[in-house]
């Protein structure tokens, strides 16, 4: 049998292969995106700079961006800031890792066994809305201001984000793909690994992005309320001391952490989901 037409073209590296309307994104998509992102942030900074000079709000309570940034500069010079950042990142990273692993594992197991899904549905819905703040006394009771009490809150809150997304994603599998897997006897594990999981992956990515920030939020909140060391604790001290620019500088740091998390997630997504509609449309076409 002769080979049909498939001629790899190597001569033309940068094609102009974009659909009408989706122009020019090809020529170095990363720098363009970064520039646009920076433009967005610059816009925010401008708004925050101007806002305190209007009558809407007093600069005493919402300092202009320049002052926040200046305060951040002095903060960056202090070693305590870096220790606090380290503490926060540790709690956040560990908590997120545990939540994602547990959420994915539980989600995959529950999602691939219909009976389990039916049995656990009500319990999941019952437990999810229990606010982590209500668990603060429990956490303190069990672990004091230890890292573990931070972890308890972080894991509890972000676990649900992951599991709900995983469950929804596993449900999204194309029946024909599922039938294919079944007819070739892929087995439960094979089906999970090669069919259900890739299908769920876009959902999981969203779940991880949600969980990452929820974990960050809970880490900070736990530090804020319980007093475990970290950025949240620094914020609490600054708040109690009425040091408004410090508060905003620290809040800005948490925000920037969120931006960093998202950048990382997008980078992972470009690799892990390169085959998916959402990514391939933007990368290739």
């Amino acid at each position, binding site marked *: 049998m002769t080979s049909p037409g498939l001629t790899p073209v190597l001569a033309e590296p940068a094609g102009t292969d974009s659909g009408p309307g989706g122009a020019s994104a090809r020529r170095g998509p990363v720098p363009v995106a970064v520039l646009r992102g920076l433009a967005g942030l610059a816009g925010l900074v401008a708004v925050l700079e101007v806002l305190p000079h209007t009558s809407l709000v007093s600069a005493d*309570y919402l300092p202009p961006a320049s002052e926040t940034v200046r305060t951040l500069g002095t903060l960056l010079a202090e070693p305590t800031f870096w220790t606090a950042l380290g503490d926060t990142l540790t709690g956040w990273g560990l908590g997120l890792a545990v939540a994602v692993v547990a959420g994915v594992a539980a989600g995959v197991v529950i999602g691939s066994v219909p009976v389990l899904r039916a049995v656990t549905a009500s319990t999941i819905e019952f437990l999810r809305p229990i606010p982590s703040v209500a668990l603060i006394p429990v956490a303190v009771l069990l672990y004091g201001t*230890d890292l573990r009490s931070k972890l308890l809150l972080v894991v509890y809150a972000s676990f649900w984000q992951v599991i709900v997304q995983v469950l929804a994603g596993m449900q999204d599998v194309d029946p024909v793909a599922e039938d294919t897997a079944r007819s070739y006897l892929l087995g439960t594990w094979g089906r999970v690994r090669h069919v259900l999981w890739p299908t769920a992956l876009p959902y999981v990515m969203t779940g991880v992005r949600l969980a990452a920030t929820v974990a960050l939020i809970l880490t900070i909140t736990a530090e804020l309320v319980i007093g475990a060391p970290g950025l949240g*604790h620094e914020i609490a001290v600054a708040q109690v001391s009425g040091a408004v620019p410090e508060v905003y500088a620290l809040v800005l740091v948490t925000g920037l952490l969120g931006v960093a998390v998202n950048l990382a997630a997008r980078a992972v997504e470009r690799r892990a989901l390169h085959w998916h509609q959402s990514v391939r449309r933007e990368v290739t076409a």
Partner: protein
Amino acid sequence: AGCGSSSSSSGASASSGGGKTTEVKVGIIPIVDVAPLYLGDKKGFFSSRGIKLKMESAQGGAAIIPGVVSGQFQFGFSNTTSLMLAQTKGVPVKSVVNGAASNGKIGADVTGVAVKKDSSIKSAKDLAGQTVAVNTLQNIGDTTVRESVRKAGGDPSKVKFVEIPFDQMPAALDGGQVDAAWMGEPATTIAKGQGARVIASPFAETDPKLTVATYFTSAKVMQENPDLVKKFSEAMAESLTYASEHPDEARQILTSYTKISGDVLDKLILPSWPAEVDMASLEKLAALGEEDGIFGDKKPDLNALFS
């Protein structure tokens, strides 16, 4: 990273209470009132008694009291109304040494009810029918503010209280979201810097010697480690005395655990730090709490709690 040593090891060493240095965790709120603790720590009053302090600063009682009860912290700092409340509910806590008290200066006490510069409210009497911010409802703030209103001849039942954290009060007051705010330091000083007027000093007006907060421990520690409790109380009493005698040092130590600085630091009003609790003032406070019904149908046992 994280919290360094695990709580279980420190808890164990604390309760074993040997002759060596024991690490003691104290749950505090990082405010002016706990300055003597830090000062005493710096002066070595604790280490000389074999106590190595570790402050755990939380946002409020919600985190401190469970921590003490469960043994995560050995001591905690709390306002006296909260302690009475805890006791009436059967929380096994016991106050061990004085914490902070009103300085008795009406108009320049540690807490005060502030209003906007151009407010029509001139005295506590005018608070009736107005919205007043307190940091915690059903607690020392609203009971003493009501007392001020009562003493000034107003109707305390007409005051509307809302809960706002101290640090948000200057903004809330300025933005007109509340008519008056019962503030602690440094919020009062900051608000005054922005033109607010202090129209009442509920603590001093309730009792010039009002014991506002004390350090407490759990029944368990009390029972199992009386030696530690004794040493802590002694060291704390010494610190309180030292702080009373050296207000400038106390003011200075604030920079080590808060972010208060500059002008505010200099103008800040300090509480008084007597070494002993004032039982009479506590009885008055308890009576006010009962009157406002915050203890339910129970009555705090002040002798069991504070002596």
